[in-house]
């Protein structure tokens, strides 16, 4: 059985429409107007253990929404999600210990603490044995070149350094399935490369399943085995990365082509 299974999954957000002008605002107090916004539409796909899948799509295509449903943060409006044999929204402890969601700087950490303390807390929360903990931390800190920063308060770190700490924090308990939402957003070239190298090496060492979203095509081209393309919440392409790497076209052009043809189909 696939480690991730998504069957006919949709997500509709109900948004309160804030009216313009005083009179309509008064009216709105008594009669609220809602609009429904379909962020993900009848999505189907599955991912095998050890695969790295890139989730591509323009801004607002529904990538983050999809990842939030896969991690159980959001309830799907319709359809069924199974990850590692669990229904994510039940939020079973055994499930939560096997997954990880790298959300960049949106995670809830205490900015006054140095990274080591944050990692300690994470160790306790996830019951990581001491040996595994210190091995993991030094292994990852080495790979990401942040060993000398472990004792610095998080708020004093640069964006890229914080992102690397976040990665260590998320991989600390050796999760089986990892979701990464724009892990290289705003990072310099060297850090981007460090993170890509890290992800590839980590997968080879641990057979971890990953789903990555990114707007940097290099991230996708270098780390992913497979690409799923979302357009307006619908899947318009799902295939091996090799299919997109053709001699006559660069990877980027291939993706752009796909996005264009997907538009035309509608």
């Amino acid at each position, binding site marked *: 059985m696939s480690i991730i299974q998504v069957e006919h999954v949709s997500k509709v*957000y109900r948004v309160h429409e804030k009216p313009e002008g005083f009179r309509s605002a008064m009216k709105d107090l008594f009669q609220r107007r809602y609009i429904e916004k379909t962020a993900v539409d009848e999505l189907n796909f599955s991912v095998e253990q050890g695969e790295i899948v890139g989730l591509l799509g323009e801004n607002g295509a529904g990538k*983050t929404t999809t990842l*939030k449903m896969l991690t159980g943060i959001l309830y799907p409006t319709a359809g069924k999600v199974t990850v590692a044999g669990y229904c994510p929204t039940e*939020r079973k402890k055994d499930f*939560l210990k096997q997954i990880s969601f790298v*959300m960049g700087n*949106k995670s809830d950490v205490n900015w006054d603490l140095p990274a080591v303390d944050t990692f300690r*807390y994470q160790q*306790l*929360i996830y019951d990581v044995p001491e040996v595994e903990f210190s091995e993991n931390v030094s292994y990852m800190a080495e790979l990401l070149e942040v060993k000398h920063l472990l004792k610095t308060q998080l708020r004093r770190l640069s964006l890229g350094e914080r992102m690397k700490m976040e990665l260590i924090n998320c991989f600390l308990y050796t999760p089986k399935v990892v979701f990464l939402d724009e892990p290289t957003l705003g990072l310099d070239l060297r850090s981007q490369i460090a993170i890509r190298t890290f992800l590839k090496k980590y997968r080879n060492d641990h057979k971890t399943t990953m789903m990555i979203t990114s707007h940097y095509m290099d991230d996708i081209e270098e780390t992913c085995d497979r690409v799923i393309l979302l357009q307006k919440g619908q899947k318009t392409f799902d295939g091996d990365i090799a299919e997109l790497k053709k001699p006559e076209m660069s990877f980027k052009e291939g993706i752009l082509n796909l996005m264009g043809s997907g538009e035309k189909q509608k």
Partner: protein
Amino acid sequence: MKKYLYGFQLFFLNSLQYRFNTVINLFFGNMSLLVTMFFWVLIFNGDFGKSLNGFTLSGMITYFVISNILSKFTLQGSGFYYTSMVKNGSLGSVLLKPYRLEWTVYFQQISTSITGLIPQLLFVLCVLPFISGFLTWNVSVWNILSMVMFIVIASITSHLLWSIFGFMAFWMEEATAVMWSLAVLLNMAMGMYIPLDFFPKGWLSVLEKLPFSAWGYLPSKIYLGLLSVEKQLQLLWIHLSWIVILLLLHRFIWKAGLKRFSSVGG
């Protein structure tokens, strides 16, 4: 258990640092207590022999000193924690942690309370030489134990109830405004403005059975020796049952709320 204590410790050190940055808080935060004392001296005409609704002047002043200190264990913060986490979407990241969120929040809030208690106690120590003559000191071991029992219950029921108020944020955006108004009402129901004995006949017998009375009124009355052991035991059972009721309510509303959670951001 260890992870909750570690979270407690991290939070404790953190808020401690903040508190001591604002020593000024120590005096201004306590001005209202001094003003209250002054009013009661006026109301009693400075007459120590007089008794109003069972309170002597020194009893009354002791009541306010004690209930002010004890009210720190009313965990309003739990409510505001949830509203802000829901509103800015960071609830998503804590939903992924394999811990009991309600416990984690409880311990965080308790540690904030204890750090809040320190300036309060310092203040009382500072003014003690001037007011010790007004205070009652004779209190039995049983009454101390009973007070502690009620305070523990108070911290739990206030945590649960305020969390439930915080869950309003799942349904409405302006939950905090409602919560501030509720806070005023609850302050009244817990006897922060005036002991519950001063309300019209019949009110007391209802109010003392509601969870709020344990948040300030009951333990202060017990300290003053104004509540018979029989009555204490009878109320203890009622307040213990509130824990069960609120736990069920908490769980039910939390589940319903999560279904509506739309996790903004990202």
